[in-house]
């Protein structure tokens, strides 16, 4: 499975990739530093799953998802973000996100959220 990890923090991208391994998910991972770069990657070579931060410069995660859906892209998207309020979960679901994992997270959180995707 091809996974695109989108986060403006290099450290967090590393932690997300490490957690994917710890959760037992074997995948080919590519990285993007914000929604804008992710959009270019997805348009060129759509991954099977996008794991995106929410709050990023240039283009936020929710703007990325809304743009993808407006373009008709069916790519699977989940959020990994510091903010996990009910309002954000509702907005994420309404926009077509599969899940929202709040930071800090564990491998168990990844297993629970991504189990049905892999």
């Amino acid at each position, binding site marked *: 499975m091809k996974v695109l990890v989108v986060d403006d*923090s*290099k*450290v967090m991208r590393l932690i997300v990739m490490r957690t994917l391994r710890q959760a037992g998910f074997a995948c080919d991972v590519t990285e993007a530093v914000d929604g804008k770069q992710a959009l270019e990657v997805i348009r060129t070579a759509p991954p099977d799953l996008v794991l995106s931060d929410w709050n*990023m410069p240039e283009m936020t995660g929710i703007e990325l998802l809304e743009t993808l859906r407006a373009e008709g892209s069916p790519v699977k998207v989940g959020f990994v973000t510091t*903010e*996990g309020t009910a309002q954000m979960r509702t907005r994420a679901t309404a926009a077509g996100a599969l899940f929202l994992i709040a*930071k*800090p997270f564990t491998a168990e959180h990844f297993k629970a959220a991504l189990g049905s995707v892999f």
Partner: protein
Amino acid sequence: MTGIGDWVDAAVVATVAVAAQALEREASVLAGGEVGAPFDAPFGAYVPLSSSDSAVQFGIVAEFSDCEGLARILLGMGDGEPFESEGDVADAVGEIANMVAGAIKTRMNAEVPDIVLGLPLCVRGTIQAQGVEQVVTELGLGAMRMHVVVLRSSTHAAKVRSRPAL
């Protein structure tokens, strides 16, 4: 209308929770909680929490060696293992501050439902906060020490300060 004490309480509880979950360390309050108390901690990261209620800056600052220690724990590195650059330490401390800010937002959401988080800003040196309330709380994580900083001004005051000069 919230007071700075509400934000400090939320910040300390959120920091202890993130330390337990993300760093797997027990954090405890060592000192602080006084409005305007001076502190000296040369490295760290701040995250803005803006709302109709107030303009808050939350920060985690510490000696650089302690910031390296926090970053090593977050990244699962060994003691003394070198970083590629100082930027990696800043990035890691920024992410810790970011996680705590998210937890503060969740805790304050009932009282202040329109909080918007900004992006982490990493700093070297002590910031000079003028015209705002400031509370610093020192926390210990094993041998490491860090300061939880909360700066707060009313949103009205923040708007006045940002008005362009005539």
